[in-house]
Every structure is written in structure tokens, then in C-alpha cells.
């Protein structure tokens, strides 16, 4: 059994004291920022990227991954207790979770979210371990044409599953691709769009864009809302244990959420947010058992299912990253950044060239999930206290960590001027209703896409038809076209808009 041998290698790496420590730090930080509204895993990972220079690559990735899935646990606490999504993937948990808290059932709601997350996290990690190997083998059959088509599929997937206007999302991807091209072209040596500024010939730093648009942009728009819009914490947590009836309702919901989340996580553009929406929608469609509380009034299934789904998706979204080297969502795009900082080129070769990192990361996810269930259920009291920290102390700290993070990447003040500019642009995007996540994905994929397109055309002597005559590439493009057709169908389009509006 290869899998067992590989996993034992992984556990050997993950159980080393230093990696246990960083897995714990990651989970702790993840829960922390998950609980705090207004700061998400994207911003945090971007902030910590420069700090991981000093760490061994495995520890760095273990910690960053811990932040991502840890945030999925923490987000539900805020959703249930304060009627505010601590994390964008907990938006639907608010609906039934807070109602349960108002009825004095905050404990069972928290337990449902925690247990569901734990189960889903374990299943998601198992899927990751099982599917990464066959997918990696497939990836070795990929030529530049296949990679290009796969990226097209990925980007279209990102648009289809993103919220809001389709056209605007496509435009944001294009803008991201273009921003990714700024700097010296590897083939011709020409500095593109750099306005003769020496710092720009190296390209725009990934961290600069992430911090400016996500960090500063969001803080500014958060501060623009009035404090009165934030509800004060009132709920009290007494008994964590769900009743027998609760268990009977929540177990099938957890199973459904886990299945859906695992599938949506693998899809390009999927990820935790989409998974939780879809799971809630599915749950609402199933029949209520006699005597069950309706949805929106504190149904435990409305907590268990989306929370399982977002956790499962957080784990499985590592599959395309680790096996194909293609990030399916913005957080995974940051993980690409983290790997390149350590000179690891993400892709199918990682598993053979860095097996201890590959399996160590996967094994650490089990350990991380076990740490998280302890952090989030028995130790829930700590996080409840944290919810009383006022935002006016938090946001200057966030701004500071962003600024230090940006500066320390290159020790360059130019990056600080640039992040100011992107902060302004990020706020502009928020005001104009332009979703920034596709931009980040495009930014990472820009140079890769150009390179693969260039190679394809070079091999085919300028003939574009190779994209449809090569079987694998053609099927990927057909899949992409299908996605587009489905989304443009009037009935589906209406459904999609409804899914995102109801909350």
C-alpha cells in the first residue's frame, strides 16, 4: 500500500515538534481571525507570507494551510453568537445559527458546527490523499496546450461560481492577467508596462496587490459602515451537548454538506464560500421531518451542513494546487506565492521532488483538525471573550501588519507607495461592486498562461487549432464551454442570482 507508506512518511514529518508547533500556531491564528469579523484568511496569509521566509518550507505551508481551514472553524462562532459572519464562508450559518442562540441553544449550534467541521475536515483530507496521486499522473500527460485549456477552464469556473455580475468578473480576471504581465518578459527581456521605474521591472509583488486590494480596501469599506450596524454580543453559552433529536437531524446534514463541499472544493473557482451556499440551498430543498423547526427559525441542519461543506471544501481545494499546480481560488493562489518564495514550483513534480513536504502537509491537516476541535469546543470561552475587543483597536493593528509585511518582502519603500495605490483601487472596486477575488487568480495565472500559449503556438507553428484537435485539451475546453452555456441559460441564471441574494 503506497498510500499507507506515504502517509506514514507524512505523519513522521508532521509530528516533528517544530511542525506540530507551526500547525498549532496556524490553527490558533486561523481560529482567531475566523472569529474576528473584518479580517479573513486571505489577508492574514498575505500578511504572514513574508514572515515565512525564515521558516523551513514544510513548516511554512503547514502553518498557512492551518490558517485557511482554521478560519472555517472560527467563522461559525461569530456567526452563531453575534449574528455576524466572522468569515465570508459563514454567511449562511448566521441565518439559523443566530436563531438557535436566541433560543438559548447556542451550545448545540456551536457543537454542530464544530463536529461537522471536524468530520468534513477529516473526509476532505482523506480525499486529498487519495486523489492527489492519480491526478498527478494525469498531469504528466499534459502539454502546454492542455495547461492553457485547463487554465481557461479554471478561470471560467471562477467566474461562474463567483457572486455578482458575470461580465464584471471576467473583466477582473483580464485585469489580473494583465497586471501579472507587468515587468520583464522572460522571453524577450523587454520590461513591459513598467514606465521606466526600476522597481516595476521585477513585476508587481503579489503581496502588494493582495494587501492593497483585500487588506486596505476592506478596512476602508468596513469603516465606512456605521458601528451601529454591528450587533452587540448577547448570547450565552450554557450546554454544549446537542440532544438526541439534534443528532438525528444533523448527521445526515453533515454527510450531505461534506459530500457537496468536497466536490465543490476541487472545482476551479469553488472553495469554501461557494460550498457553504450550495449546502444550505440543498438543505432547504430537503423535506422537514415532522416536528422539526423550519429553516430560518433555528434549524440545526442549517448550521451543520454549510459548516461541514466549507471545511470539506477548504481541504479539497488543495487537490488542484498540489497535483496540477493550478490554484482553484484566491487563497490557493497565495499558497502558490508561499511555495515560490521557497523556490518550489507548484505542480505535479512536487510530489516526487518534495515528498516529505507533500505528505507532511496532508498529514498535518488531520493533526490540525484534531487541534481545532479542541480549540473550538472545550476552549470556546476564550473566543467569546475575544469578541468583545473593539474594532477601533483592531484595524490600526491590521494596517500596521499589512505595511510591515509589504515592506519586509523586498525591503523597499516603493512597495509601500504601491500598496497605498492599490488600497485606493481596492476601495474603488468595493464601491463599484467589482469582485476582486478573480483578479488575484488572474494575476497568478497571467505569466503561466502566456508562457503556455507561447509554447503551444511555437510547437504548432502558429496553428490555433491544436487546442481542439488534441483530445485532452479539447475536452477541457468543451467543459469550459458547457459551464458557460449552463450559466447563460435563463433559468439557471435566475437561480444563481437567487442563491446569492437570499440571506
Amino acid at each position, binding site marked *: 500500500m503506497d498510500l499507507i507508506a506515504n502517509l506514514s512518511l507524512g505523519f513522521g514529518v508532521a509530528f516533528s515538534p517544530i511542525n506540530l508547533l507551526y500547525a498549532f500556531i496556524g490553527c490558533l491564528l486561523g481560529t482567531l481571525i475566523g472569529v474576528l469579523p473584518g479580517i479573513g484568511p486571505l489577508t492574514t496569509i498575505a500578511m504572514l507570507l*513574508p*514572515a515565512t521566509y*525564515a521558516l523551513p518550507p514544510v513548516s511554512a505551508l503547514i502553518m498557512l494551510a492551518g490558517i485557511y481551514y482554521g478560519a472555517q472553524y472560527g467563522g461559525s462562532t461569530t456567526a452563531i453568537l453575534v449574528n455576524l459572519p466572522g468569515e465570508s464562508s459563514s454567511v449562511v450559518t448566521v441565518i439559523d445559527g443566530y436563531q438557535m442562540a436566541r433560543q438559548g441553544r447556542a451550545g448545540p449550534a456551536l457543537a454542530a458546527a464544530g463536529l461537522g467541521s471536524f468530520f468534513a475536515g477529516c473526509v476532505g483530507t482523506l480525499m486529498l490523499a487519495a486523489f492527489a496521486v492519480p491526478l498527478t499522473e494525469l498531469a504528466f500527460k499534459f502539454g502546454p496546450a492542455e495547461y492553457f485549456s485547463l487554465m481557461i477552464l479554471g478561470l471560467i469556473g471562477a467566474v461562474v461560481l463567483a457572486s455578482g*455580475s458575470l*461580465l*464584471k468578473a*471576467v*473583466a477582473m480576471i*483580464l*485585469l489580473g*492577467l*494583465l497586471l501579472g*504581465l507587468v515587468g520583464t*518578459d522572460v*522571453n*524577450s527581456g*523587454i520590461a*513591459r*508596462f513598467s514606465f521606466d521605474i526600476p522597481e516595476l521591472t521585477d513585476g508587481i509583488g503579489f503581496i502588494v496587490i493582495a494587501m492593497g486590494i483585500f487588506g*486596505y480596501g476592506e*478596512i*476602508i*469599506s468596513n*469603516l*465606512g459602515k*456605521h*458601528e451601529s450596524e454591528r450587533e452587540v454580543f448577547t448570547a450565552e453559552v450554557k450546554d454544549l451537548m446537542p440532544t438526541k433529536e439534534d443528532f438525528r437531524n444533523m448527521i445526515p446534514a453533515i454527510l450531505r454538506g461534506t459530500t457537496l463541499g468536497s466536490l465543490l472544493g476541487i472545482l476551479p473557482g469553488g472553495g469554501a464560500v461557494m460550498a457553504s451556499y450550495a449546502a444550505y440551498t440543498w438543505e432547504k430543498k430537503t423535506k422537514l421531518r415532522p416536528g422539526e423547526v423550519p429553516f430560518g427559525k433555528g434549524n440545526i441542519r442549517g448550521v451543520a451542513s454549510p459548516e461541514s461543506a466549507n471545511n470539506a471544501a477548504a481541504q479539497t481545494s488543495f487537490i488542484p494546487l498540489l497535483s496540477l499546480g493550478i490554484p482553484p481560488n484566491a487563497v490557493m493562489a497565495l499558497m502558490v506565492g508561499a511555495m515560490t518564495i521557497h523556490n518550489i514550483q507548484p505542480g505535479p513534480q512536487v510530489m516526487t521532488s518534495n515528498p516529505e513536504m507533500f505528505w507532511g502537509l496532508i498529514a498535518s491537516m488531520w493533526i490540525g483538525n484534531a487541534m481545532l476541535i479542541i480549540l473550538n469546543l472545550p476552549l470556546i470561552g476564550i473566543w467569546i471573550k475575544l469578541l468583545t475587543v473593539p474594532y*477601533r*483597536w483592531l*484595524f*490600526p*493593528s491590521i*494596517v*500596521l501588519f*499589512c*505595511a*510591515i509585511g509589504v*515592506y*519586509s518582502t523586498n*525591503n*523597499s*519603500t516603493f512597495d*509601500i*507607495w504601491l*500598496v*497605498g495605490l492599490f*488600497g*485606493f483601487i481596492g476601495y474603488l472596486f468595493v*464601491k*463599484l*461592486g*467589482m469582485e476582486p477575488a478573480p483578479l488575484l487568480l488572474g494575476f497568478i495565472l497571467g505569466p503561466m*498562461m*502566456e508562457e503556455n*500559449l*507561447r509554447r503551444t*503556438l*511555437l510547437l*504548432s507553428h*502558429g496553428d490555433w487549432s491544436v487546442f481542439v484537435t488534441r483530445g485532452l485539451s479539447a475536452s477541457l475546453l468543451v467543459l469550459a464551454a458547457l459551464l458557460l452555456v449552463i450559466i447563460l441559460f435563463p433559468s439557471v441564471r435566475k437561480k444563481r442570482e437567487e442563491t446569492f441574494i437570499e440571506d
Partner: protein
Amino acid sequence: MSIKSQKDFFSGLLIMAMGIAFAWGATAYDVDEGASMGPGYFPLMLGVLMAILGAIITFKALVVETKDGDKIGSWAWKPLFFIITGNLVFGLLLGGLPSIKFPAFGLIAAIYALTSISAMAGEEFKLKEVLILATVLATMSYLTFIVLLKLQIPVWPQFIAG
């Protein structure tokens, strides 16, 4: 014809302008169609696509009715100004600006400046509280970034540390 969706109208214009700018900039480089793509090829293609999309979004914003006109709403000028200014002053104090002979003041001074300027973006500003917060942040940053992670950041003013 009136604007039916304010947000879409302006974002469409913005996208169109950026698309045109990138496409126009790309023509300065070798485009070179065919087997060997020049450095201008891909950006030109993307820029043109983006401009077309922008035009469609703008057009739709003029034609398709929305419920409430999709207003942009008021701008949060105060947080925008103080957050960005705090960030710029941080950079100025941390690294100095050799072109105008502004000396570097180092990390600690920069943290106090950033914390107090960005704190003004909030709804209430209590000087004492902000100073305590800045002191806590400065100590924590010093310990994590300088002592623990050993990042090469100037800590004290140039004219003192030399």
C-alpha cells in the same frame, strides 16, 4: 437615455479605459503574430477583450432596468484618507526619502505615526488609548520581526543609530 445602474456604468467605463490603456501600451512592443508570439501579443489580445467587455457593461448599464438604480452611495472619504496617509507616512518614516533628503526615522517612530494616523479613520479617537495601542504594537513588532524573525528593518532613526 439615462443611467440605469450607476455602479455598472462607471465600472464599465473604468474597465474600458484600462483595457484601452493596456492595449495601446502593448502596441509599443513587438506583437509578431504566428508561431513566435511577441511580447506585445498576449497583452494586446487581453486589452482589446477587456475594452470590449467594458463597452458591453456600460451599454447594459444604460439599457437594463434595475430596481433602485444601483447607486454607488456615499464615499467613506475619512477612512480612505487616513488609512492611505497612515500607510504613506509609515513608508516615509521607515525608509526616508533620499530624493528630498528626508532622513529615515526607523520602525518604532513609523509605528507610532501609522497607529495614530490610521486610528483617526475610526468613529472615535482617544489619544491615550491610541498611544497605549501604539506602544503595545511597537513592542510586539520589535519582538516578533526584529528579535524573533530577524528581518532587516531599520529600527531607530538614522541620525541616532548611524
